[in-house]
């Protein structure tokens, strides 16, 4: 099976190690991974702020970039939601619409790809840490990814899972919302960070680097010693190579 990594704008510029972890995990699972160099940003920042024409420009380039991909796997659930839910509407008719629909159908959030496409039932991963998880609103509500990520974490040996109170609550990122409505966003992320700290977890795992950037930024400001990692990083770091011990 072949998959193209969708590293996202944030992943490219800010979190390259997350894309690397996705490549590691997918290759370990026997997937051949490529990286279409034409990709930049899906256009979600513009679209969610009302700049539909600007978003369409980004989307067109994005569709071009992944034209030949068998599957597209992303480190961010909200970017996948953008492709799946909003791309077809951005191109309401003709060949563009058909291309948008086709891309939407083969674009996956990382955990979704593992659960729904690869059908992963077990993982040779050991990760000795207390871990909690932020589900991310668009991943949960727009993609319907609800139990899958916890099920994957449940396959990891040594992992001490700490459920997060108010897990369904938004972290307050919301794209430009974090700047346009900064004071409200700050209160939301403060509540989220406080709940994360209360779990006693050493690592906050997520499926969307924008939410994790937000919560991580607040945790750091609070002086909390909680590392923030994408699920792929936990799996890549803890993968037992040749019967090794994992992390």
């Amino acid at each position: 099976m072949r998959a193209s990594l969708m590293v996202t704008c944030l992943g490219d510029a800010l979190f390259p190690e997350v894309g690397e972890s996705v490549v590691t995990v997918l290759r370990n699972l026997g997937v051949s991974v490529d990286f279409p160099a034409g990709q930049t940003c899906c256009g979600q920042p513009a679209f969610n702020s009302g700049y539909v024409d600007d978003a369409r420009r980004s989307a067109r380039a994005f569709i071009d970039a992944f034209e030949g991909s068998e599957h597209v796997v992303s480190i961010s659930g909200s970017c996948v939601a953008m492709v799946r839910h909003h791309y077809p509407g951005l191109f309401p008719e003709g060949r563009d619409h058909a291309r948008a629909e086709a891309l939407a159908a083969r674009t996956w959030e990382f955990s979704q790809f593992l659960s729904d496409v690869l059908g992963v039932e077990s993982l040779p991963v050991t990760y000795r840490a207390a871990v909690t998880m932020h589900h991310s609103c668009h991943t949960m509500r727009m993609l319907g990814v609800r139990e899958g990520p916890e099920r994957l974490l449940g396959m990891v040996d040594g992992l001490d899972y700490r459920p997060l109170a108010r897990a369904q609550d938004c972290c307050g990122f919301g794209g430009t919302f974090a700047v346009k409505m900064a004071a409200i966003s700050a209160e939301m992320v403060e509540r989220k960070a406080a709940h994360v700290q209360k779990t006693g977890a050493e690592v906050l795992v997520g499926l969307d680097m924008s939410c994790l950037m937000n919560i991580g930024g607040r945790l750091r400001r609070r002086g909390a010693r909680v590392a923030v990692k994408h699920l792929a990083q936990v799996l890549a770091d803890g993968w037992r190579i040749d019967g090794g011990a994992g992390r």
Partner: protein
Amino acid sequence: MTANAERERFDAQVAKALGDRRLQDWLEDFQRLGQEAHVEAMGELDDKEAWRDALSELRAHTVANLDRYVDEFTANVEANGGRVFFAGDAAEAREYVLDVARGIPTKRVVKSKSMVTEEIELNGALEAAGMEVVETDLGAFIVQLTGEDPYHIIAPALHLTLEQVRDLFSRESGEDLPAEPDVLAAWARRRLREKFMTAELGISGGNFGIASTGTVVLVTNEGNGRMSTTLPGTHVAVMGVERLLPDWEGLDTALTLLTRAGTSQRISTYISAISGPRRDGDRDGPDELHVVLLDNGRSRILGTKYEPVLKCIRCGACLDHCPVYGCIGGHAYSRVYSGPIGAVITPLLEGLDAHAELPYASSLCGACVDACPARVPLTELLLALRADAVQSGLEQQSWRAGMRGYAELTARPAVWDAAVRVAGALAQPLAPGGVLRSAPGLLDKWTASRDLKTPVRRSFRRRWRESGGRVDDGRGS
């Protein structure tokens, strides 16, 4: 109010709410308890998603055929001996109610809680005509005394503490009342009883109007609705024109979800179905019944991409589930409707130019959409309003330029690559640890409360290119 003044009012109310630690704690508790109860009440239904589908279809059908149902409702109310007035706007609605009140004549009006009468600012008009207006829902009574707008669609005094209500009632009564809910409610009941017995006019809203029988349905918990609509000689019900249902079967669906979604009750304490004024032989009821169907911008929404908002049954569930409402409360949004539904309906009814900030007062998390019993696609509607705001030039020039520039970058991968490289190079001396505690420009709004991750020196695409795709360091097998 001008757009700028409205934005300043919004910002001031947000700051006030965020600065009130007691209120913040209370809003968190209120939402947690409300959401747990909501999930439980909805979960009791055999198949809640099927019920939501049914309500969504019912409401969409009614709204799509509204002209037909308005005619049917009107004919049946009149056949029952009532009168229907179709008010094109708030002023027409106020004038009609004033005419009815003057014709009685009226010294005192008792009111059952109604958001639509808040929308048309009816109380002020009646008071200006020399009448005493008494809100009789306990929460509405409280905020009438404090002179505030309702804080929540179904819980107007949600923001006030027991002690604040004690102080308020003590001042009103001239007595030293204790901070005990029973005692305070008893005082309010005595006070309101005098008003009920002497009012010439009773005004209510209408949760639903049933077209097939010309019936106004009121959903209440305190009994004040029934007192307001039966004791005075005249009853005027004022309701949004979209709040019709075809028939009683539809009411079954709507009621089942309204009380569960709104107050987590299987059914409210009172359901009143009012089909006409008192008939010969009736023991009570008003001699006259008037129903005001208010348009006030609603029919303008029909047939547009915003039509699904008219499915709303004003249960308030979206407020209870919205994390933004949970931070800023009800007074920031606008005078009447708050929460996600307020952020959508207020710009539609009063003009987007006057309320351009409201569609942006959401993180688009979708909790409201999950909670809505009528499946109003609130986040989609917020997105549509944002697109209209941009189209209408309501966004700041700096944002417009920024978004255009960003789109240019994203459409040219080579330029993107260079820009990321420059950003990464610039960030290194500024943020040696890869994190900024204080950022320049607009991003200072981010760093006011959060550390900011900065671009790395070597982007993912560079690492991929330079390693020939072996970015996993051979860790992948």
